[in-house]
């Protein structure tokens, strides 16, 4: 088994070029919004049943950047920033048998319905966890 972090950014551009953004949720119909939430809940429930769900939480949209500013001084903070391209809306950790399975599941989650009931086609970021060193190395 291997753990992967699925990061939800709610965006449709994977690289530098800007593709059409996902319209803000408050411009969807209420039913469309409900369908979106339900899709994600059902997805997580299915993974719980298959024993592949390892965790997940939603994050507030706005955060703060913080850094050390020298001895005896309070930390420096910056933000929150309105820039939403790097927004992380939430994360889920899955524990699956293979990279292929992780990709399959991420593809499925990316098909969550959005405005007009159409899949939102968002890019999900899939990041493998670094594991403990194995017992047998030679």
């Amino acid at each position: 088994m291997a753990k992967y972090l699925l990061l939800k950014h709610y965006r449709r551009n994977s690289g530098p070029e800007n593709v059409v953004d996902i319209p803000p949720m408050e411009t969807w119909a209420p039913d469309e919004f409900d369908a979106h939430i339900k899709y994600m809940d059902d997805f997580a429930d299915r993974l719980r049943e298959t024993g592949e769900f390892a965790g997940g939480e939603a994050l507030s949209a706005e955060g703060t950047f913080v850094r050390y500013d020298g001895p005896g001084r309070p930390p420096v903070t910056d933000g929150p920033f309105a820039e939403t391209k790097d927004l992380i809306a939430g994360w889920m950790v899955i524990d699956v048998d293979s990279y292929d399975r992780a990709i399959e599941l991420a593809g499925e989650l990316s098909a969550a319905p959005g405005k007009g009931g159409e899949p939102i086609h968002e890019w999900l970021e899939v990041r493998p966890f670094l594991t403990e060193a194995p017992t047998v190395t030679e």
Partner: protein
Amino acid sequence: MTREGVSREGVSRDGPAAPSAVELRQLIPGVLGVLVRRGADFATAEDAVQEALVSAFQTWPGNPPRDPKGWLVTTAWRKFLDLARADTARRGREESLLTEPPRGPTEDVDDTLELYLRCAHPALSPSSAVALTLRAVGGLTTRQIAAAYLVPEATMAQRISRAKRTVADVRFDTRGDLRTVLTTLYLVFNEGYSGDVDLAVEAIRLTRQLASTTDDVEVAGLLALMLLHHARRDARTGPGGRLVPLAEQDRTCWHTDEIAQGVELLQSALARNELGAYQAQAAIAALHADARSVRETDWVQIVEWYDELLALTDSPVVRLNRAVAVGEADGAQAGLAALAQVEPSIPRYTAAAAHLHERAGDLSGAARLYAEAARAAPNLAERDHLTRQAARVNQARGCT
């Protein structure tokens, strides 16, 4: 072992039935009290009681004791001696306590109140007070508390043992410290439900138990407040856990027995003429409970109670809630005027503003504010609710 496990499997063929998990947990403060009165130090005694509790969960279903409290005291005392011996051996010195436990008439003394005061002592952070109260007074296991607060068990164990060290030798100021006990119980109540323990139910149980040890009128006020809110639990969430605001709740789902109990407690508390913040909040909850719909609610009286509450606490959160009530009592413009007196940085300010703007007919302003409030929401259920509100208003103004 689940809570239900004890009660369900608890009947042996010819012996007595094992107490339910809740009955078992009710014994915990008394057992801990006996150990402390015998001279055990609080921190070790509490560990010993916890170990006895875990043993009870394991052995009682198959072999329930005839005298559950006696069993717990004996087992906990034995565990305490083991723990203290290990400790003594480590430090290489003798403790007279180990050979001859003092016994006597003190065994029946009820010092449950002192236990509450210790576990929610002002020297503790709120999260530590919550954890220690749930374990030492509530008799929950570390694992259950960790699951309820979604933190690893080792983290919760550490939090509890640090808390115990902090309160090992504290002094009590009964009246002042009772306020932090109430705050702690209120925090537990507000945490709601996750894991296999319903923290709201547990908070009510602990507050009721506290109310039986003290006649402090605010304890009754808090218990009334909890019951009146708890009565609405089934109406508060819809399919998929979505939040249903008070105005849209199906009031036939409210638990009338709890409302009646809450109102009765509140009335006898108010009759004593020592108004406090919990009684005032309970009075507001009672007025909501009394109304068949949001329209039939006595908003004028609710505003008056908010004025009382402001006089007692002068909190910006109360000002905010008062502005919403003013909006219902005297119209949206009056509500907006009251809102203008509130500090905008407080939580839920924007959500209240959105609601008042919508009522005032400013749909585009309301949609923008709902969306803004959703971005700042402190929890997922509220964020989803506010996003849905924004979507609804946008749909109403033909923008979707």
